[in-house]
């Protein structure tokens, strides 16, 4: 059984079913002309059908395979750090927040403190110069 395909199929089935149900709530068409709900329902039904096909095929497969996560903890932590950085977006002083995030990000990926801090400062300076001063984008 291919576990990753089974999980994907389950996700697509749920999303497809949601589209079919929610599409029913949109205005219906008239006189042979489809309404706002026609495409969501068609796409949803097609998605469910294909997902069931994938599920059937995944169960047929001999042996057990799944997601190949080699460095799962490090990847999750990197995504988590970015999540925190984004959650703090707009809370003030962009250069400091960004430099701090990048230093921790690089340190976590095995760089030495000095090189992590150096690269972070350069990247932050370039992005601030390009976007804030060059293109007048307010990053605060």
């Amino acid at each position: 059984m291919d576990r990753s395909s089974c999980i994907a199929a389950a996700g697509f089935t749920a999303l497809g079913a949601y589209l079919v149900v929610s599409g029913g709530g949109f205005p219906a068409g008239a006189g042979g002309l489809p309404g706002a709900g026609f495409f969501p329902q068609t796409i949803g039904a097609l998605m469910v059908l294909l997902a069931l096909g994938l599920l059937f095929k995944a169960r047929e497969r001999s042996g057990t395979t799944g997601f190949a996560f080699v460095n799962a903890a490090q990847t999750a932590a990197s995504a988590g750090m970015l999540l925190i950085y984004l959650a703090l977006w707009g809370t003030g002083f962009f250069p400091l927040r960004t430099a701090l995030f990048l230093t921790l990000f690089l340190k976590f990926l095995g760089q030495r403190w000095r090189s992590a801090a150096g690269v972070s400062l350069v990247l932050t300076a370039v992005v601030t110069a390009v976007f804030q001063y060059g293109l007048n984008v307010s990053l605060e």
Partner: protein
Amino acid sequence: MGSELLTGLTAVLDWEVLGFLTFGVTLGAIFGALPGLTATMGVAVLTPLTFWISAEQGLAMLLGIYCGAIPAGGIPAILINVPGTPASIATSWDGYAMARKGQAGLALGINALMSTVGQLTSILFLALLAFPIAGFALKFGPAEYFGLALFGISLMAGISRDQVLKGLLAGTLGLALALVGLDPMTAYPRYTFGMSEFLDGISFVPVMIGLFGLAEALVQISERHSIRELPAGVLGRILPCLNEWKKMLPSMMSGAGLGTIVGAIPAAGGDIGSVIAWEQARRISPGKEEFGKGSLRGLAASCAACNGAIGGAMTTMLTLGIPGDAVSAILIGALLIHGIQPGPLLFQNNQAFVFSIVFLLVFASLLIMLIGLLGARPLAGILRIPSPWLWAGIVLFGTVGAYALNNAVVDVWVMFAAGIAGFLFRKARIPLGPLVLGLILGPMMEANLRRALIIGRGDWIGILTRPILLFFLTAAVLLPVLPLIRSKLFMRKE
């Protein structure tokens, strides 16, 4: 047409446009030369910057990245046997073998020269055939456009090799994402969850940055690539001699031609084109046993083909509004930012702009030849940059770029969500191409079908039996189904 041609050339001969083109080609060369950074990623991450400059300048930069990254992808393929972009997979087969024989310089030189030959051949194809194709496409009505969009998505899923079902599912997910926003005919809000930011739909560029920038960085962190071992010693001579040119000529021509044709097929890019061209060159050339062991002919065919795909993909994108590959999908998004809709009407209403694109491609291909020949050594040197520095740069530029498009935090979250989804999809071996195509073609599909039904007063049979639409529908159904039937038949035989 003559005055339009002159206007197009004049627009390109502006020093600012040429400056952006040079910047783009140089940046593209760096992106291509670094394994893990692809042309798609470069174009996706840099697209937000084009918002502040003119369409010509923005396109000059993005086309420069595109034309620069594909040839430069051959540099790590030759030096360390790691293709810089997927298009240079076949380049590594003979290029790396040449480097191991002490001919790294010659392989890099052939890569630069053949890339330019491939690009110029495909640009000629674009210049000669784009206008007749666009002229034919002008006959299309809404029903035919619906069929074309459906065919494009189906084709992309169909060439997802053994992942046809997953490709189709990714395509339907793209179509589902395209539903977000106001209904194209009645302006009824769908899936906006009460957020006014979603009334215009999901922004295309943040999705692309997430799928091809953040997701790629996460994949590389998860797989912890650490390939930065450069071969010791000098590169040697770079230019091929006359005899070597003679040897390579047939493979070069067949490679450039095949690459262009394959590139013009929606969704089939340089990676497929170069493998097909390499195999074709092996079949027709004397000395088949040399292929894969440092054959000049094999290297010439693969380099010319992966670059020939650029002009082919641009022809499909400009004439039909259907992306030829992932980069041209993002280029459509970039053009839309400037209010330019690729498709046959572009050839009727803005011929000068089309000529500008042709000239930009010509200048970009000549520039990359110069960079490839003169800058082979420094470009080889940038392979020493540690991977985490690149990942940090991609994450930061991607995040700020997504935000800067509309000064909207919601776009940053869309980019993040697309990045996580893209990472999980890559791990589950779900192709991302059909998703992007679904997102781009979804609104075109829905609006055109419903428009056709309004024109035909709800007569479904009358619309679905129009010859061109019927052809597209049949092809759209058969393309993903045929490989499945074939694999079932083979399984039975075994």
